[in-house]
């Protein structure tokens, strides 16, 4: 076959065979190849241009967001005044019961430079890295709720895995019921976040809020994750299939906040 092809076509056929072979090899062993350093180089190269490309979009969004935030600010100021009174009352009651007090997490604002993922974003590039005090394992949130956690830290940027990452798992609880489950993303049959491992006997109602339970040690307790949007029965009949509507809007991530996490995962 190769003998009947002109030289240029023979060369391109050999080239594509080489590429196909290399790709197959990478598909088989790619997960064992360290890729973080290559992504670090890519992130350093692209981050200044990401900012330029996104400047117009960010400006228009900031103008619209500003109007919305003014209204929200007034509403929250009123709510805050009421909560301060209740917090003081709560503090005094906890003192009487000898319970430890709550600790407010410190929030570090960072910009989202790029999204990764073909349709549903599964990772984001953040504008701060190791030099900006970001650490692997830091928790990424928005004002609405949990987004994910920092997976890789580069000198000036970092990369965070979102809840929509196929490898992500978050220990959660349904608010005020104590029902526990594990939040996972499933791409099939429809991309969705689901609360798994919830026994069939546990009562969960559509609309209830889902928060982090703090049982996985990766995330502190009480961060909003989303709301129960539908409940179904698992084919096995032992657990429920609960779909969660995420609190954070993954399609509109522009700025996020970092909360200091427990640190990097121990290497296996």
């Amino acid at each position, binding site marked *: 076959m190769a003998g009947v092809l002109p030289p240029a076509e023979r060369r391109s056929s050999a080239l594509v065979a080489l590429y196909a072979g290399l790709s197959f090899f990478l598909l088989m062993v790619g997960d064992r190849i360290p890729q973080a350093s290559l*992504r670090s180089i890519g992130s350093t190269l692209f981050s200044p241009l990401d900012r330029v490309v996104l400047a117009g979009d960010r400006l228009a969004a900031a103008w619209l967001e500003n109007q919305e935030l003014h209204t929200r600010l007034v509403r929250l100021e009123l709510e805050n005044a009421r909560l301060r009174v209740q917090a003081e009352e709560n503090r005094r009651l906890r003192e009487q019961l000898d319970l430890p007090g709550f600790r407010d997490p410190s929030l570090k604002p960072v910009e989202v430079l790029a*999204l990764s993922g073909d349709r549903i974003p599964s990772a984001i590039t953040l504008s701060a890295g190791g030099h900006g005090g970001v650490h692997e394992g830091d928790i990424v949130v928005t004002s609405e709720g949990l987004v994910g956690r920092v997976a890789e830290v580069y000198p000036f940027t970092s990369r965070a895995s979102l809840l929509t990452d196929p490898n992500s798992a978050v220990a959660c609880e349904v608010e005020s019921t104590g029902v526990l489950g594990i939040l996972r993303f499933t791409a099939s049959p429809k991309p969705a976040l689901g609360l798994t491992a919830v026994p069939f006997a546990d009562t969960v109602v559509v609309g209830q809020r889902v928060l982090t339970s703090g049982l996985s040690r990766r995330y502190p307790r009480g961060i909003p994750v989303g709301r129960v949007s539908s409940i179904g029965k698992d084919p096995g009949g032992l657990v429920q299939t609960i779909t969660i509507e995420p609190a954070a809007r993954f399609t509109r991530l522009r700025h996020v906040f970092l909360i200091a996490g427990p640190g990097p995962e121990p290497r296996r």
Partner: protein
Amino acid sequence: MRGIGAALTGMFTVLLLRSTLLAGLAARGIVFDVLALATVFWGLRGGAGWGASFGFVIGLCADLDAAHWLGRHALGLSLLGYLVGRLSGTLVRDSVSTQFLLLVLATAAHQAWSIAFELGGFLAWPEVLLRVVVGAIATGILGATVLAFTNRWKGPFAASGKAI
């Protein structure tokens, strides 16, 4: 040397757009498959060797960015670039309808190939079909428009390209 420079600039631009402006649109359901679009463009312009090389390198960059299934885009796009390059010798490359059809087929093939890795079974076929059709039509329209402008600006494809 100029060809390599142009290919690298093209790759850089495509990857930049993919992770910024187009990522937001993709998350809302409108997928412009710029990886397939750029590979088809390079295959048409430079032939099979250029198409395969461009597809492989840009695919590898996209795989690294995705952090899962390294080699997935590289394999699909290098084959796509090669096939488009081979076809470019027999097709009327400067016809808008040919380019549109080629882009629709190329995007559908690339989308179907890359989605297959994300899904666990065949239950999701309505979602996959919708995603492939929307992506193919959106990319076909965008790509044919871009190629028409490029032809007008830089001249027809027949005038450029050097086989490797």
